[in-house]
């Protein structure tokens, strides 16, 4: 599977899981659907960014750092807009970025070179 598609799928899946955990917080349970959609999009963006990065740079450590940074920035923006739950949003969001950064580098297929 190519790196961008792989990043997209893993980012979306982990983002959705991340969003679903909002169910455990009764104060935001009413907005669960919106949180899941938002979190999925956040994971999806991180995954695509990590996938594009993996196509340009072939290095697992750099891929992990890039994914971590993208995940952190996106999660920070979400937490900043809510002014609450900083740790509960930023920590998992960053780790989702780290995981897609690793997965796109390790398992994504490089594009075929033109002959």
């Amino acid at each position, binding site marked *: 599977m190519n790196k961008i598609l792989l990043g997209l799928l893993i980012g979306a899946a982990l983002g959705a*899981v991340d969003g679903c955990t909002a169910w*455990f917080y009764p104060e935001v349970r009413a907005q669960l659907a919106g949180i899941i959609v938002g979190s999925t999009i956040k994971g999806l963006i991180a995954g695509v960014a990590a996938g594009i990065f993996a196509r340009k740079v072939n290095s697992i450590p750099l891929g992990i750092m890039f994914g971590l940074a993208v995940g952190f920035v996106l999660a920070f923006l979400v937490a900043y807009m809510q002014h609450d739950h900083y740790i*509960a949003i930023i920590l998992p969001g960053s*780790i989702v970025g780290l*995981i897609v950064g*690793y997965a796109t580098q390790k398992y994504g297929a490089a594009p075929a070179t033109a002959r």
Partner: protein
Amino acid sequence: MSVASVAQHSMRHLSDKAITRLRSGAEAPDLNGTRYRLIGEVGRGGMGVVYAAEDEILQRRVALKVLNASRFEGGLANRLLREARVLARLEHPGIVPVHEVGTLADGRVFYTMKFVEGKRLDQYIESVDSTPDRLRIFLRICDAVAFAHTRGVLHRDLKPANVMVGPFGEVLVMDWGLAKILADAIRDEPDRRDDSIPSLPADGDDSNSWGTGHGRVMGTPGYMSPEQASGEIELLDARADIFSLGALLRYLLTEHLPAGSPSRRDRSLDAICAKACATGREQRYSAVQDLAADVSRYLDGLAVSAHSESIFDKLARFYRKYRFFIWLIAAYLLMRVLLIVVVKH
């Protein structure tokens, strides 16, 4: 004391080492009239002796193989010449290149080849602990043997002692003295014939005296296919070498394991070895490329053709391939649960 008795007394006290030294000195090839200067002996086989020599024109070290002085006879001289010619037609990075063939002043045939500084495979793998690294070495051996097969040459004596690994990890298949030229390969090369040079006869051809004919068993027990061990020369084809490669693979997976390391055997690799070493040649891989492809698939974490997997085998293979990623996801989910617990309290 007479001179004769003194000499007899001295002879009685010659050590075995001294006798060996004297003998090797007597057997040392006379390189006068050639471009080579003898450096020393590096190896000895049933047919010939390999010396290190210096090419004085190109100023490089070469390996010089010459018939053993005690076995200096026409048939063996032809065998050595034949070996050199087999090597000459096999230009491949995994096969040691031959430089020159000639005759020494004493009439012995010799040929020179690249001097390989490295270790024999059986010594080299003592320092290779990882199974994938051992399998990658095996794939490079397969590559060289597959190339030889495309040129119509069977090695017939593949074993760890006949593979060298150089200082930069280069893998070279050595000792093509028992190689068999397939008749098809000779027929396919009519344009390369030169009337002044005797052509390479195919083995099994009654008219040649160079080959290793029907009923003569040549090879190494344990690495020889059943048809080779029974001397059925006309039955030999690529599958005889595939048998030897299977035995070589088994050796690489079982020998010189680091102390306390778990067994390297798993069902897929066992199945590959079993298929390559099947008693009936019809059950073996039909080409070296197929054997190599199965080993490559194993290295890539894919299913191999030699083994039909159960669902548990598939799950185990999936886990082996994505082990780190699975643990990463598990750690993430655990972290998520712990975070919920901590925030709630």
